[in-house]
């Protein structure tokens, strides 16, 4: 009896820790669909971040293709909660926004974008001569 409770507790903790580091890995195919989907009365992610997130409608909009999935997911959660402020992003992805995102949406979109090619890359300082 005691061991059953312990196993249940261990399972709960294990699930919790997975969620704490960004949830289950996303599904890129579903992420692509969600990224391109236009909700009624709203705009798709791709309408500003362009196809596969590899472009942007203007220079103040970030390139997303090739960015780390966990960074993207954290950013989307912060936009959703309002912890990170950007008028356009908050108004869209918040629960009462025009393009609200579920936890699964966030993981799927992040997995999709991280797998795309772009000019974005890890900074490598030039070698000293």
């Amino acid at each position: 009896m005691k061991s059953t409770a312990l196993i249940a507790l261990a399972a709960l903790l294990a699930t919790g820790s997975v969620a704490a580091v960004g949830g289950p890995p996303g599904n890129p195919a579903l992420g692509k669909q969600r990224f391109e989907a236009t909700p009624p009365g709203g705009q798709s992610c791709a309408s500003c971040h362009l196809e596969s997130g590899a472009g942007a409608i203007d220079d103040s909009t970030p390139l997303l293709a090739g960015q780390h999935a966990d960074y993207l997911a954290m950013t989307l959660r912060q936009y959703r909660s309002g912890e990170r402020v950007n008028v356009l992003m908050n108004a869209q992805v918040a629960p009462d926004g025009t393009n609200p995102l579920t936890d699964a949406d966030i993981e799927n979109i992040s997995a999709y974008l991280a797998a795309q090619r772009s000019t974005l890359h890890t900074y490598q300082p030039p070698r000293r001569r």
Partner: protein
Amino acid sequence: MRRFLPALCGTALVLAMAPGLAAGSTAGASTGNIENGQLLAFTCAGCHGIEEFRNAYPNFRVPKIAGQNETYLVNALKAYRSGDRSHPTMVAQASSFSEQDIADLAAYFASRKPQQQDRRP
């Protein structure tokens, strides 16, 4: 102390003049000075210059910033400086940046294209 003071004043004078020097030499359409940006970027490389480098608490990989759009980078650094974005290390770094420093850093990182680092002699 007497010998130390003039040296100190000299250093302060040079530091005070530095932003003016940087602002004087702008390159291209952008107001950022790419060469000065490269000098300022020395500290950034400690986290942003390491593949898969991880931030702790919360745990995530620090974002790729080379090749990112310039205006986005300017806005990000200004948001850290004002405290609108809350990452402690970035807030600490950005708190000392002038407008020109931010423009220079953004211009430099935006200018870094993948081929620049792949095609080394």
